[in-house]
């Protein structure tokens, strides 16, 4: 038998590829943001504005790319408005959590 090589470059030409990489990349930004929030909260050190932007870009980019990827895929049982609502709730929860962490954890 002939063992085929992995054709990685095929995947890079697919419509969802860049979106997939965006999703994964912004996910890493979000993780960094969480670590920074915990760090600044524990050490009572000030935030740099760039760190807040990091969190915002990571959260919104990650969430929106997941939303878009779900739309590109064949529909699940959820309707589009239901999926949009779920992600809107996610964004809202993320912003609330960020506000809580930044104000109460940092200030106290």
């Amino acid at each position, binding site marked *: *038998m*002939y063992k085929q090589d992995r054709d990685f470059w095929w995947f890079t*030409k697919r419509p969802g590829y860049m979106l997939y990489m965006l999703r994964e990349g912004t996910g890493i930004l979000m993780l960094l943001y969480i670590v920074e929030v915990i760090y600044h909260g524990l050490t009572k050190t000030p935030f740099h504005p760039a760190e807040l932007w990091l969190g915002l870009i990571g959260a919104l980019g990650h969430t929106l790319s997941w939303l878009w990827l779900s739309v590109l895929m064949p529909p699940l049982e959820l309707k589009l408005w239901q999926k949009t609502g779920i992600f809107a709730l996610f964004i809202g929860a993320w912003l609330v959590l960020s506000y809580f962490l930044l104000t109460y954890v940092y200030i106290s």
Partner: protein
Amino acid sequence: MATTRKKILVQRYVEGMEKPELQEFELEATAEMTVLDALNAIKDTQDGSLTFRWSCRMALCGSCSAVVNGKPVLMCETSLKKLPDTVRVEPLRNFPIIKDLVVDIDDAFEKMRSVNPYLDRMEARVENKHLQSPAQRKRIAQSSQCIKCMICYSACPVYKVGENFMGPAAGALAYRYIAESRNKKKRRQLNAATGKKGVWGCSFVGECSTACPKRVDPAMALQRLKVMGALNLPKRLLDKE
């Protein structure tokens, strides 16, 4: 009958060759011809050694899956008139090639067997009852459509490199039986699907669902299994069996 001249490039491989090679064929294609029809015409009139799997010709059996112009499809439902004048036909990716377009799919079937895909309900056999409501049936309808064509395995970028990943079709099959209302002993199947060689290799690329010709949405099944596996973890840790 009006015909169009098509150039069909087919990947050929026979044991002993250093690597596969493309062979060019030309034929007059009618408007109704599919890629499978073209290969059969080539086999009948030009090269009888051309080897490929096919059976039902109506997208039910899953035998004729191949990569056509870079996309994994069922050849019997891929119309030639919707393709350019040059058509490139290659075997499914991620599987070893036996000959020409025939690949070895034993690994994928082994992964499907590993999820124990059967109903386990001894008392119903005695009572001869398998009652199921329409809503319960609907829950597994989509996952039940899988025809084991392996197109999802060919589309999955993780399957090739993730030895511990069960793959999309196995995930859909596992979900089909775990979500089955008539299945009363689904713990073993859930443990198999969410164990070390289960769903966790999936990074939700979604190409399996995009490529699936029966709209099974294996990506959905895999993500739902992940949720089930996470919720099942405390029980699994406490399970002394």
